């Protein structure tokens, strides 16, 4: 019957509450910094300055953010269809295999702008295929997608080790990685964009795959909210029963959603390989697939939110590295703790402050919120 219900304006829902969550995460992180005997305010300043203070930092922040945009979008697409794809890590890692083969085959014959599209297709295809098997098992056999995608992360890791110590490694090399790609498989840098604003950059890996990430964010928005397929995915995600009623095939929609999700996760591998290291090395994904889960949750599964959350996490990565350098008491692990707190408050405890904000809004402006208009006139 009458539920306690006060509707928040959109800006409070999408901006204010995430900011409050973020603020609380930083406050708690501040206590952790105090515990290790450092000044939390100074730590915060170093962190923010390290990420945004100089052109160099900004470029690195955006480089990290690019990978997180892909992995965040991957999680979001699956989540809109009610599926928790926790296998972005493996899908991105295995995509490195496709990228490696394409780059090694074409980098000496094609210019980068021809190698890049082929590599995109290869990365997406590998990621999609890696998601297809868990999707099929879920749709046909009811094997839970969370379990199977986690297991596929391990399989991907093993396959990549096998490939990198075997066929992909140049003969005679001791390092488990491919040879360095030639110019035909090196993505151009975008550092000049930042330099347009007067900043100086020595060297940073910010590259054109960032543009691909933004394009994908837009395409995901179109897919989810403007296509029939997206409509069907959202219907299934909210209510499988309603989807059955609406004549949406459960098997088809699960497989398609997971393959799109896997393809996006696969594309995340382009940034560190072709954009930065110019090779495919062991562990090059380094957890970005899991960060995507937090990015997607914090971004409320909306591409705009995901881009913003990805930049935030890029900042934590880049600023965190600076912080570990400047404050020896704060190790790399501390940064992970701070990231964990952000994930905790922005993701798991997302709704903790909502009732208070709602109560505040209800008391501030009783006319603009609430359900009076709706309920009062109910037929």
């Amino acid at each position, binding site marked *: *019957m009458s539920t306690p219900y*006060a509707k928040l304006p959109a800006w409070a829902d999408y901006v204010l509450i995430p900011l409050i969550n973020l603020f609380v995460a930083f406050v708690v992180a501040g206590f952790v910094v105090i515990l290790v005997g450092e000044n939390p305010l100074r730590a915060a300043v170093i962190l923010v300055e390290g990420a945004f203070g100089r052109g160099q930092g900004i470029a690195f922040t955006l480089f990290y953010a690019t990978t997180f945009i892909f992995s965040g979008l991957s999680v979001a697409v699956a989540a809109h269809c009610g599926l928790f794809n926790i296998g972005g890590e493996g899908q991105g890692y295995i995509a490195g295999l496709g990228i490696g083969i394409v780059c090694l085959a074409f980098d000496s014959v094609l210019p980068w702008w021809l190698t890049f599209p082929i590599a995109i297709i290869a990365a997406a295809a590998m990621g999609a295929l890696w998601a297809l098997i868990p999707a099929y098992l879920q749709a046909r056999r009811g094997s839970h997608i969370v379990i199977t995608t986690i297991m596929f992360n391990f399989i991907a890791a093993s396959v990549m080790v096998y490939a990198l110590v075997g066929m992909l490694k140049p003969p005679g090399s001791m390092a488990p990685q491919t040879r360095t790609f030639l110019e035909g498989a090196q993505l151009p840098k975008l550092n000049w964009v930042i330099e347009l604003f007067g900043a100086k950059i020595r060297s940073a890996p910010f590259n054109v795959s960032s543009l691909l990430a933004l394009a994908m964010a837009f395409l995901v928005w179109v897919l989810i909210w403007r296509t029939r397929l997206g*409509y069907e995915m959202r219907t299934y995600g*909210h209510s499988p029963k309603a989807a059955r*009623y*609406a*004549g949406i*095939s459960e098997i088809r929609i699960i497989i398609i959603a997971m393959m799109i999700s896997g393809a996006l996760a696969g594309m995340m591998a382009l940034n560190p390989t072709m954009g930065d290291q110019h090779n495919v090395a062991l562990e090059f994904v380094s957890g970005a697939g899991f960060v995507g889960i937090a990015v997607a949750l914090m971004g409320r599964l909306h591409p705009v939110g995901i881009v913003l959350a990805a930049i935030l996490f890029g900042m934590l990565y880049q600023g965190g590295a600076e912080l570990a350098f400047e404050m020896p008491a704060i190790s790399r692990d501390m940064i992970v703790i701070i990231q964990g707190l952000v994930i905790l408050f922005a993701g798991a405890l997302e709704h903790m402050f909502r009732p208070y904000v709602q109560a505040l809004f209800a008391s501030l402006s*009783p006319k603009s919120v609430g359900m009076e208009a709706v309920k*009062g006139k109910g037929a």
Partner: protein
Amino acid sequence: MAQAAIELIGIDKSFGAVRANRDINLEIMRGTIHGIVGENGAGKSTLMSILYGFYQADSGEIRVGGQPASIKTPNDAIALGIGMVHQHFMLVDNFSVLENVILGAESDALLKKSIAKARSELERLEREYGLEVDPDAVIEELPVGLQQRVEILKALYRGAEILILDEPTGVLTPAEADHLFRILRQLKEQGKTIVLITHKLREIMAITDTVSVMRQGTMVATRETRKTTVEELAELMVGRRVLLRVEKGEAKAGGVKLAVKNLTVKDSRGVTMVDDVSFDVHAGEIVGIAGVAGNGQSELLEAISGIRHAVSGSVMLDGKPIDLTGAADPGELRERGLAHVPEDRHHVGLVLAFEENENSILGYQDDERYLKGPFLDIDAIRDDARDKIVKYDIRPADCRLKTANFSGGNQQKIVLAREMEQDPGVLIVGQPTRGVDVGAIEFIHKRLIAMRDQGKAVLVVSVELDEIRSLSDRILVMFAGRIVGERGPDATEGELGLLMAGVEQREAAE
């Protein structure tokens, strides 16, 4: 001189900006049955939740037995002798009656003593009030009528002097309801006070001494039951005159549109829910399926609409068979002119998190009118939704509003508008007015009859006997998965009630 058992003085309760109760004054006399009626959302349940300690009033005073009372939790209410029988039973299904009764009122760490004490107390209560239940029966094996009795026993065991019953007859057959009323009268004679919350006006007339009417959070009137009429109460509830029984002409039944033959359906546990059912629905008639909830009606609807697969039998739509093997695609059936308003609009018929306009194409998302290639034609969808909002008087008239924010009646109108406006040849409707306000019921019934008069075949399943009787041209009664009888629209409630309870016609005649 009768004394007030409960007095509510100036009770106010708001949820955010919604005033669910405003300045409620109510006096409930000791030893009476007091009915509270009102539409969904009128504030009845909120008021009772305040009385039972689920919510706190923002302002106002509660007096129990003349003394000011502070009721902060249900435990406070129980201590004051107030017991509540919820609409949805609060019983542990795999516990025995006795275990359920003592749950939360155990007097010892070791159960043995509590149980022995409870058993003798329970036997006393059963004798005293004619509430026979086997104390060792397991709840899930009891029919709903008996489960409800256990709920009443639970309240009495805790020493309730005042019993609140929230929509107690929703799940009962007419015979079970009659039995409940006998129990309530007996309780009244023993000096208990009973508060009955319902939206069924006939029950109010049948059993209460006093009736209070709520509308939009306010208490609009309190009447002595014998001095009022159903018509007056309905008008008070809605705030305007209401047609309680829809006017309709003779059905002009045409050819067979939907033919169900020997249909058998099992549920996911392998239990036969629909057992060898056969019937036809003709163009231009409404066939109503009556029955107590859970006798296979839901599964029957799901099988016909392609959502659930059938074990055997056949369903013909316009003379062509429907694939019942589970490969049936509800989308394909829609194209063939079968529209379905499902029983459960919250999980099946609508996606509550969607905007209203998005729900107005659910199931028709393949329709070219709403698409531009693979893309949704947002403008066309919203225009279409706005048209339906006007035509079906859906309020608020905002196609961008989240569906969850519409009232039950308006949600149902969204589903009906979507299905009826596709101009189907066959319309099947589950629980057309469940959780729908009186005003909207009238509207929905008129629409269904209009569909019939346009020559559509309409199949209605409802647990509301009144609804079935007032809508249907033919009534089929389902019991334990079988169709146990067919009657005309003039069948009496008693006759249908006996069929619904599974009593054979011959026994009934004796």
